[in-house]
């Protein structure tokens, strides 16, 4: 945001920026001014728009002689001889070389760098110039990302990068997004990428602990050539996060703060009292007569009544505020950065939110000409609180979910009295129909759910130049992550009320995860005979991890007023105590060879030894190679003026995935509370449970990936295009493979199965307009990935997965992975509308009997009536059962992408970011319950559209009659297109005019208004298409009682002093 350069005219005084640079360069040059003087050269440096450029560094190539341009762009220096070359360099501009050639006046025009082939890209264990890149690496435009008012970078990452799919489970405050790079490689194991934060590899990121405004760059390594250096952990891609460090110059104090609101975007339309009572009359006439038709009331009495809608009470206007303060600066020897952030989000559902206090210090010190040391410490304390709205119900009853109770709440009491004052609605008894709901508002206000995370990341390094071309970098670090999860359910909550045998209950669990790291890397850089550039890197690293969970769960807590502190008074406390550990030792090496910046070769190798496997299988070897041909440097293309860069990249390599239990190779027995037996009515005695059958032959899962990429840059980088095609095949999957139950266990880890992902990624950056006062630039990216399971275990042809939803449905798998097809597809019956009268024969007694040639719906033929739900009988046997299940939906999108447009006009800047997902389906399980009452609960309100259900005089073919829902099956009725286009981020800013800013003695100031999740175009009927409340590789896109993604609008201020 400081990159906008003010325009200068001759009379203007230099701004802080040029001042600073001038100062720095003066400092640098002071000792050099005594060099012998032979030739005097001077001139003026200007930009393309004919503005003078102050602060440009001008140096005599190969010497330490140099100067900087003054405020009028003027420079002068003394060169040693007339053959010398002057090098003009300035941040944001292309470096220019000019031979003196005897001239005494050299005026130059510097070209702005737009995408910039000289920009540095962070890769594993080093950096590389973008132009020299051989692999597929995507770089986040931090300037765009920073415009989104989010708690962590992953909240704003979706749609930013081709090949990087980011999905939210739902909008629960504090949750971290699911990031999958180039499709899921593992079937049953975690597919999230490896995070490398300031060089520290973290298998489960620390996204919530990092302040997005501390991030200097995010680079995503996608192909095997770039990820193989991370060997056994590279197969899911690598996200490298580099935080801001101090720069040479006087202290810069910057403040970035915003405050705004969060708001729920959609509410469900529910039946009004008239429709509700009319519906209940059909569900249970006796019940309705008693509840609603007393005191002479009739159905008509409810006609114009306004109903109670608890959505108005459960949703609130939330708030979001963040304040970041940083001071950064430094000199030749020492560079420092100190920053802190306070963030507070109040959720759009009552009593929920996320809070964070975070601080970071980094220090870099040049100890001597050969030795550089540095350290970096980040600490954060974050608290996520509130009822977990989309969580899977522990007792597998949908009725405990928060939004179940909200949507299903009776809109009217029948006796004129309020029904939202007490926890229990007298008409709803948990004992009837297993309906456990209580007043969701009271419950949500009383429930304590608090996850406190204290996270410390501390790294230090020492870099020693052994000889000029050879550097040793030794670094080490720790990350300590301590999660404390508190839960307390007092008597006014859904799980702690008097109807529950556990009574008032609560739990405290601590989950510490500690990782240490040591890395020792040697880097050798040498240019031979001008044309041959060699960069060799070798090293070994060690990493160790310990983790655990300990805590306890207490029931029937006698004094609820004491809250968590009263848990110890419970007569029954269940303790948990778990610990585990792993170690990883690795040797790595990489060779980069460049010939005339034309032919680029990268070969890398990593060998990882992991404690997660048995001896003899611990070491895995992961080689890769890449070749790039920069044809724009070939003679035939050099002269094509409009081509700035043209590069073809090829890469192939092997990477691994280590996401398997720490001791999966061992058989395990344990003694859980569930495996006990009581003899003689005594307290149950412990029993052994076979928790896992070990597989001593377990080894690394290997992903082979081929990538072909092409980079094209036209018209001096005004158009930049990157296209990548890839195919990655994961072999010897670390599959939690289905075992015959005869083994005594349902699954064990085996290296079996194969999965393939292939795809196309396309990124286009354009500068559409760029002139003095107005600029417009765009970024468009789209990724296609197709996934295919090639093999599973033994002769298994499909793997079915259930989601924890509701007991009736849990027995029916909602998802299936079929060999030869994508890993996640929705599975169930094909819905065929509603039975109409024509499907029945009418008996003389006036009964309707289903015609023999019409299939049942899973119910017994004799009880099916007109208006019941109808399914397609795939096997034609006349009855519907699990043999008629088929694939009914697509879990994965055809393509995803994003489209960013940035405009500047004078001091104003506007950024519009659209993001989409196309072709994926969702299971809208809300409709199973609220569009036809799949569990046949009484006193349960329904969505408004169900008022238009099938009735004898309303032959609906979409909404079955009351009670016509049939057995608990998933069907294509509730599979919906989950495609969406979302205006994800809009930011409008104004840079206060320089004079005004100066008057306030500040360096720059920008005020802005920024919005997140502003508008969504979708055909999905649920609250939000960005949803996956039971998310896993096998079960994406399930929607039930999801916390809605809020719309956020904030007003903010960036200032630097």
């Amino acid at each position, binding site marked *: 945001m400081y990159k906008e350069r003010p325009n200068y005219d001759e009379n203007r005084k230099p701004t802080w920026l040029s001042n600073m640079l001038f100062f720095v360069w003066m400092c640098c040059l002071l000792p050099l001014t005594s060099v012998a003087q032979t030739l005097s050269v001077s001139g003026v440096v200007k930009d393309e728009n004919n503005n003078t450029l102050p602060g440009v560094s001008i140096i005599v190539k190969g010497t330490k002689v140099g100067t900087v341009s003054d405020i009028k762009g003027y420079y002068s220096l003394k060169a040693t001889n007339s053959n010398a070359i002057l090098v003009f360099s300035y941040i944001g501009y292309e470096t220019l070389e000019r031979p003196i050639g005897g001239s005494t006046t050299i005026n130059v025009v510097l070209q702005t760098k737009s995408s910039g082939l000289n920009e540095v890209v962070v890769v594993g264990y080093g950096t590389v110039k973008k132009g020299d890149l051989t692999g597929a690496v995507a770089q986040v435009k931090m300037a765009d990302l920073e415009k989104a008012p989010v708690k962590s970078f992953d909240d704003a990452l979706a749609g930013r990068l081709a090949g990087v799919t980011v999905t939210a489970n739902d909008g629960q405050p504090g949750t971290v997004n699911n990031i999958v790079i180039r499709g899921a490689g593992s079937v049953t194991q975690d597919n999230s990428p490896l995070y490398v934060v300031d060089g520290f590899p973290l298998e489960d990121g620390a996204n919530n602990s990092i302040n997005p405004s501390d991030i200097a760059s995010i680079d995503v390594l996608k192909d095997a050539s770039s990820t193989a250096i991370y060997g056994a952990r590279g197969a899911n891609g690598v996200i490298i996060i580099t935080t801001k460090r101090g720069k040479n110059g006087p202290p810069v104090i910057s403040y970035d703060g915003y405050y705004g609101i969060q708001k729920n975007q959609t509410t469900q339309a529910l039946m009004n009292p008239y429709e509700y009572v009319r519906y209940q009359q059909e569900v249970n006439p006796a019940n309705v007569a008693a509840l609603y038709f007393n005191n002479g009331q009739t159905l008509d009495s409810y006609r114009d009544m306004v109903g109670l809608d608890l959505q108005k009470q459960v949703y609130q206007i939330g708030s979001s505020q963040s304040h970041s303060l940083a001071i950064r600066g430094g000199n030749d020897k020492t560079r420092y950065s100190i920053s802190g952030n306070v963030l507070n989000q109040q959720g759009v559902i009552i009593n929920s939110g996320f809070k964070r206090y975070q601080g970071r210090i980094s220090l870099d010190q040049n100890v001597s000409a050969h030795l550089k040391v540095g350290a970096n410490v980040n600490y954060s304390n974050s608290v996520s609180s509130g009822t977990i709205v989309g969580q899977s119900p522990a007792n597998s009853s949908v009725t405990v979910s928060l939004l179940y109770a909200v949507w299903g709440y009776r809109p009217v009491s029948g006796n004129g009295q309020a029904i939202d004052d007490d926890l229990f609605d007298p008409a709803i008894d948990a004992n009837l129909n297993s309906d456990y709901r209580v007043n969701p508002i009271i419950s949500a206000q009383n429930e304590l759910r608090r996850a406190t995370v204290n996270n410390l990341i501390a790294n230090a390094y020492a870099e020693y130049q052994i000889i000029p071309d050879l550097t040793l970098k030794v670094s080490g670090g720790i990350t300590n992550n301590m999660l404390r999860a508190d839960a307390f359910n007092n008597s006014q909550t859904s799980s702690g009320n008097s109807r529950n045998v556990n009574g008032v209950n609560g739990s405290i669990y601590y989950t510490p995860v500690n990782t240490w790291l040591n890395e020792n890397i040697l880097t050798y850089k040498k240019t031979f005979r001008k044309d041959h550039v060699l960069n060799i890197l070798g090293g070994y690293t060690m990493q160790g991890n310990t983790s655990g969970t300990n805590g306890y769960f207490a029931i029937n807590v006698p004094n609820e007023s004491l809250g968590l502190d009263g848990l110890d008074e419970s007569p029954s406390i269940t303790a948990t105590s778990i610990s585990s550990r792993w170690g990883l030792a690795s040797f790595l090496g990489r060779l980069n060879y460049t010939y005339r910046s034309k032919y680029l070769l990268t070969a890398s190798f990593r060998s990882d030894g992991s404690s997660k496997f048995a001896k003899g299988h611990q070491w895995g070897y992961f080689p890769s190679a890449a070749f790039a041909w920069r044809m724009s440097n070939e003679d035939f293309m050099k002269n094509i003026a409009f081509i700035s860069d043209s590069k073809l990249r090829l890469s192939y390599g092997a990477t691994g995935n280590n996401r398997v239990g720490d001791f999966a190779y061992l058989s395990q027995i344990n003694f859980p509370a569930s495996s006990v*037996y*009581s003899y003689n009515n005594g307290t149950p005695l412990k029993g052994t449970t076979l928790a896992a059958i070990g597989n001593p032959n377990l080894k690394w899962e290997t992903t082979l990936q081929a990538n072909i990429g092409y980079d094209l840059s036209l018209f001096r980088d005004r158009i930049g295009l990157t296209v990548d095609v890839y195919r990655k095949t994961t072999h010897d999957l670390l599959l939690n493979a289905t075992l015959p139950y005869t083994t005594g266990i349902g699954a064990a880890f085996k290296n079996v199965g194969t999965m393939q992902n292939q795809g196309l990624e396309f990124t286009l950056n354009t500068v559409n307009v760029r002139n003095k006062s107005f600029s417009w630039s765009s970024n468009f990216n789209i990724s296609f990935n197709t996934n295919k399971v090639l093999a599973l275990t033994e002769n298994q042809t499909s793997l079915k997965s259930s989601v924890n939803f509701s007991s009736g449905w849990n027995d029916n798998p909602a998802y299936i992975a079929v060999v030869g097809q994508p890993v996640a597809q929705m599975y169930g019956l094909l819905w065929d509308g509603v039975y109409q009268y024509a499907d029945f024969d009418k008996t003389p007694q006036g009964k309707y009997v289903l015609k023999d040639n019409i299939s049942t719906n899973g119910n017994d033929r004799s009880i099916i009536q007109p208006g019941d739900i109808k399914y397609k009988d795939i096997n034609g046997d006349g009855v519907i059962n699990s043999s008629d299940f088929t694939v009914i939906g697509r879990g994965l999108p055809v393509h995803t992408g994003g489209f960013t447009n940035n405009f500047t006009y004078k001091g104003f800047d506007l950024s519009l970011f659209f993001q989409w997902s196309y072709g994926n389906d969702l299971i809208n399980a809300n409709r199973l319950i609220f569009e036809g009452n799949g569990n046949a609960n009484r006193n349960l309100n329904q969505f408004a559209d169900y008022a238009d259900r099938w009735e004898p005089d309303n032959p609906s073919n979409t909404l079955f009659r009351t009670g016509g829902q049939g057995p608990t099956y998933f069907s294509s009725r509730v599979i919906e297109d989950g495609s969406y286009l979302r205006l994800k981020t809009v930011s409008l800013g104004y840079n206060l005019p320089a004079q005004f800013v100066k008057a306030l003695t500040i360096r720059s100031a920008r005020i802005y208004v920024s919005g997140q999740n502003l508008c969504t175009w979708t055909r999905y009927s649920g609250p939000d298409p960005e949803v996956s409340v039971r998310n896993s590789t096998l079960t994406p896109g399930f929607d039930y009682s999801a916390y809605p993604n809020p719309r956020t609008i904030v007003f903010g201020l960036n200032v630097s002093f």
Partner: protein
Amino acid sequence: MKKKYILMMLLLTSISSCKKLLDTTPTDFISPEAYYQNADQLQVGLNSVYDSMAGTLVYGSIYPYYFNTSTDLEHNKTVTTGSIVYQYDPSDANIASLWRGIYAGIERDNLLLSSIDQPKMDETKRNVIKGEALFLRGYFYFLLVTNFGDVPLLITPTASVVDVSVPRTPTKDVYAQILKDLTAAETLLQTQTAASLGYSGKITKTAAEGMLARVCLYMSGYPLNDHSKYQGAYNWAKKVVDSKEHSLNPDYTQIFINYAQDKYEIKENLWELEYWGNNTGGVNEGSRYTGQWAGILCMDQSKGYSNGLVNTTRKLFDSYGVDPRSTTTPNKASLDLRRDWNCANYTWGSTATATRANNTNPWTMCSGKWRREYELLTPGDKNYTPENFPVIRYADVLLMLAEASNEINGPTQEAIDAVNLVRRRGWGKFSKGEGIKTINVIAGGAGYTTVPIVAITGGGGTGVVAVAKTTSGKVTSVAITDQGGGFTSIPTITFTGGGGAGATASATLTLITDADLDATQTASPDVFRQAIKDERGRELCFELLRRPDLIRWGNFVADMKDFGAYAKANGATTVAMTAPADNVAPRNLLLPIPTHDLSVNKALTQNPGY
């Protein structure tokens, strides 16, 4: 040079520490190889095998409810589709659960048995644990073979997860292993008896003997039809009887009240599965079946919640016969006290506060065997009860003895006596004793303007309700609506009140033999066989023996079809009542092998018809 040395040092220290780094040891769990080192650890291993047997997947819920509540004696209240009513295919979740639960138990058992000789310990203790473990493995396989037919027979723990394809072993060979395990168990458990334990929740010598009788009886019937095994069944049953360890509880209802109240009846029960507590604090040791699904409908948790889903059939209700003198409507009283216990003639209603409501329709009566209203534990869990389940009772042993004996020698006195013993207990002969059978008017007297009170004095009994009838001032007859009990001698009958005088009457007592089978029922092996079958239904209904009994008797499908016709002709009105008989087909003699295993065990084959 100095630099080089430093580098070398660094490298060397790192490589040596790297070896240590990769050598991690788990601290949170134990490998099976490292366990079973002492007597206590063997016992812990054994506990988990019992837990598998009693757990949700086997006896705790799946096996009883989904596979044993649709016979000619019982049906589900509401369910019209799915495994309960014989609608299942290989992908059925409940079938997979049952299979999984049993094999999980077998694996636990095999782990234990493979290490049983490992610890140095007291041999007697070892023998007991080994005996129990062998029994349980044998019984698991008995459940498998009776439900699935040929099954993979695994008697060592799973050695590898890579090679998991195991073919099915023929039924005959599975039975051979069962006999081997149970016989070995019986030998090892010579010192463990119900009396020595004081409770019946563990396998004892007589439990093994009783179970051997059952296994032999099943081998004698369908599908093996190995009639030579009748002798084995007889011998083992006889061994239980002769052990004098067991006798019938005098009061049939008390057996089940005891389950509700967590009391043991070591005489009646050879082995009961223990359920415990109210499923709080993560310990889920309750039963979903006893008293809950198979319980008296009640939505009031303070009374003992029950869904009341397992209902009786008229066939069961009518099988107990009626007291011909009874005048109650619509159902006459029965002299067989088991009827009104097994067929609950009331519910507690579907309201939050229990309200007793009579139910006179034998098609909708709840199974009354386990009654939560007797539970002592408070608060009780809504869905799970602490009520034990009897896997084998002494009454069953007596009836098996009779059945085997009849097949070998026809209706011997020993066999008849065994059946009659069960019947006498059912009629309350040991609990209520004898009552008044008739009151015969000797002299009518005169002048009775109203009906006089029939006074019964002496004889030692109580509880008789007798009503006189008068015509023209004379007492003409006395009707007995409750015969009372406890009479040891004939009481004196007098008439008081009614304005008249002079009426006299004499009483006759009921006889213990009233409950006995009559001569026609023991006239031939065939009729006696039928009598035993019927008696098993009356005595053992809801104890999960009916379906396997019908199958081993060899006429399951036809019996169910006959029942279906009977049901439709005798008041069965709902699909839930008739669906089981309608759906049953020859393939239902066996459950299908679950798809789950078929898809990952290349050596498996499917049962016919699936």
